């Protein structure tokens, strides 16, 4: 298992380097210029040229990438051009908000998703199953931006149960968590239901029935336990999205977080911040996937064997 973990960790190094190249090149190659957001009406072309030189934007792109990577390996993400703070500080201020929101949404989608999926499998082809399936369809197709506004209209404006936006109290977390979580619920419930129905057709389940165990007990004690392997796989792949899955929702609910920071910086082409945020999101996905692989390998020795 240790060997497997080390091999998987080593595989992350080339992936990290490739990701860093893609992130750097994408933001520098798309049209747009942070200097436009820094100069005043009335500034002379010479002042603009001085700013370009100050930030090294007149250097060849490869050289700029080299400098960024060198600093990155030293743990220095650089200073924001527009926001005028160390990028590390900006990320440190915003990341806890994203983790709180994403973490709660992940927890919500896991618990409710497994519960509703199991319920649908338990009462297959009943009205409960059909209702859950309809909800899954809705949850997986509604755009989160629209769902967020709908949540605000119903629960904040009409019922006045929760605040419309912001991050001033724990109640302000409820609607964004539900909005993000519902998407996850749909996915987890669908996988849980499908896995339970698949496991339910295995021979050992038939034997349990022959032994006279109740249908409910077989489903919840035996089938669900075996069905959790694909669910864990799906969940582990979603761990990375705890950080990155809330980009639009942070915008709709005017919440602080990595998503809000990324959108603001992207609009102003604040290169160091965009690079820092994208790197954080990519690393979250990479580490989430690694964690998922390790969990899977721990649960299923065949996965470990594949990397030998």
């Amino acid at each position, binding site marked *: 298992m240790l060997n497997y973990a080390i091999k998987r960790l080593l595989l992350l190094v080339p992936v990290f380097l490739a990701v860093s190249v893609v992130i750097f090149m994408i933001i520098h190659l798309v049209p*747009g210029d942070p200097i436009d957001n820094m100069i005043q*009406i009335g500034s002379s*072309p010479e*002042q603009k040229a001085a700013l370009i030189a100050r930030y090294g934007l007149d250097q060849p792109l490869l050289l700029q990438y080299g400098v960024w990577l060198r600093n990155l390996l030293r743990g220095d993400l650089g200073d924001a051009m527009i926001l005028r703070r160390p990028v590390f500080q900006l990320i440190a201020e915003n990341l806890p908000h994203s983790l709180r929101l994403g973490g709660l949404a992940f927890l919500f989608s896991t618990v409710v998703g497994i519960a509703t999926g199991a319920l649908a499998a338990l009462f297959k082809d009943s009205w409960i199953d059909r209702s859950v399936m309809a909800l899954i369809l809705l949850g997986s197709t509604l755009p989160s931006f629209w769902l967020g506004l709908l949540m605000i209209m119903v629960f904040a404006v009409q019922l006045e149960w929760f605040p419309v*936006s912001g991050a001033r109290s724990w109640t302000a977390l409820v609607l964004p968590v539900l909005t993000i979580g519902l998407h996850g619920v749909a996915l987890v419930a669908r996988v849980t239901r499908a896995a339970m129905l698949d496991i339910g057709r295995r021979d050992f389940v038939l034997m349990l029935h022959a032994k006279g165990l109740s249908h409910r007990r077989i489903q919840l004690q035996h089938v669900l336990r075996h069905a959790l392997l694909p669910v864990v796989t799906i969940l582990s792949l979603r761990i990375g999205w705890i950080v990155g899955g809330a980009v639009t929702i942070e915008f709709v609910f*005017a919440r602080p977080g990595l998503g809000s920071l990324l959108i603001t910086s992207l*609009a102003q082409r604040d290169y160091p911040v965009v690079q820092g945020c994208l790197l954080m999101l990519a690393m979250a996905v990479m580490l989430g996937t690694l964690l998922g692989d390790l969990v899977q390998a721990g649960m299923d020795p065949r996965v470990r064997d594949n990397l030998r």
Partner: protein
Amino acid sequence: MTSINCSVRLLALAAAGVCSMAAFAPAWAQDATFVLNAREAGSPTYNPIKGTKLNIANNLIFDRMVMQDADQSFHGQLAESWQAAPDGMSWTFKLRRGVKFHDGEPFNAKVIEWWIPKYKGTENAFMVDAIDKIIVVDDYTVRFQMKTPDPSLLLNMATSFMGIPSPKAYEALGDKFGVTAAVGSGPFKLASFTVGQQTKLVRNDDYRWASALSTNRGPAKIKNLTLREIPDDSTAFLELKTGGVDLLLGVPTDFLPRIEAEKSLKVVTMPGTELFYMPMNTSVVPLTDIKVREAIALAVNQKEILASIFGGLGLEAHNFLVSSLLEAKINPKFNISFNAERSRKLLDEAGWAVGANGIRAKAGTPLTLKLWTQNGTQFKRVTEVVQAQLKAIGVNAEITVHDPASINAQYRKKTEHQLAVRAYDYTNADIIDWFFSAARMGYPNVSMFNDPKAEELNLKAMKQSRTWEERVTNFKAYHEYVMSQFPFAPIYQPTQSFAYSQTRLKVPDTIRGIKIATQSIMDIEVR
């Protein structure tokens, strides 16, 4: 005697009752939350000397030498009076006495002597470029010795970038000034600042020196003021509707009917500071032909756009400047107004004949032009109407929508664009220099306008005006000449609106200043 004693007791009881009610008044009674205008959101710093994007909080933390009223007139704030020499080569300012910064440091002539040189090497240096040296005449009198006359000095002094920080705090904090703390002499002190999210201000209880534009000379009536940034307009509107916030500093035109429908909310509309226009790339065929440019400019029906897109809210634009500026009042013959008949005649004269499909052509080449715009509902709608208006005179305009962050880079390619729908927000006539000077081709000079006579008039207006009156005259001449060459078509001037909860706030009937700012916020009460 008994009745008198009884009355006294009753009065004392009543007084005690009032006092106890006051003592138990909820802490939020003097607190208010405003939502920043979308254009002001994202300010990274409250450092007026180095910041290039400042919001209203900056003006509440820092006082300026002078302020502007809605009619663009100047009024003293930290300067009680001023006098310019007839040749424009010196300005003398008498300073207000008794002003203290939030850290207790006094404001005097020495502060000004320290402050102005701090702009050197910053992006805001051009504001004080014309000042040669500062002479301290006495503790409360300073004289600016000028390198060249600068009639726009007062205009510069009234901008947010000329807020005066406490020298002691500024030197102590270095690059962190405006980021971790900001110390000025304004009616509010900075309590906390989370970039992109919110700024919390707390009242400066020592403040007694508000400008004459405020009825209340100080301290402010609001005790704790939170300025939130809500990027989505729908969310901001719903926050106002549900009482989550008390005032929206900017309301998009689309939302005005919805806010007006709410009884508890009130919308205040003021003259705008923004202008929509359509630059034409004068360096590419067929827009190199002035007749084609004039025809296109005359095809834009400002009245129809105002009515159909903006529901009549705002003003038609007929030249390049917002109508409140003196330099906008040019000879009417230079103003550009819709005239389809003349437009068609000009195209005929230029050799563009109407084809079978209604689109004009010349030597087999159809009159098809690229029309650029940027993301945003208003931009898209205006562009689509302009496209239809151009089609009516036989011009086929093909729309391309660009991301606002990348469109300037596209303009810098210089020959890719032909027409574009754009807007600016600025209240100084020198915006003509910014968008039409040959020194800035591609962007901001999207029109690629390069005309020797215009450059000559530009130089005169920008560098050779000695007095304010002379500056106005010179800019009018420059403006008129640019108009005569048709490098753009004027479209629309939006109004600016803010909305507030009538149940929470009492806002003065007359809003002083070009926008809702310190002048009016001093007089806003929390109910």
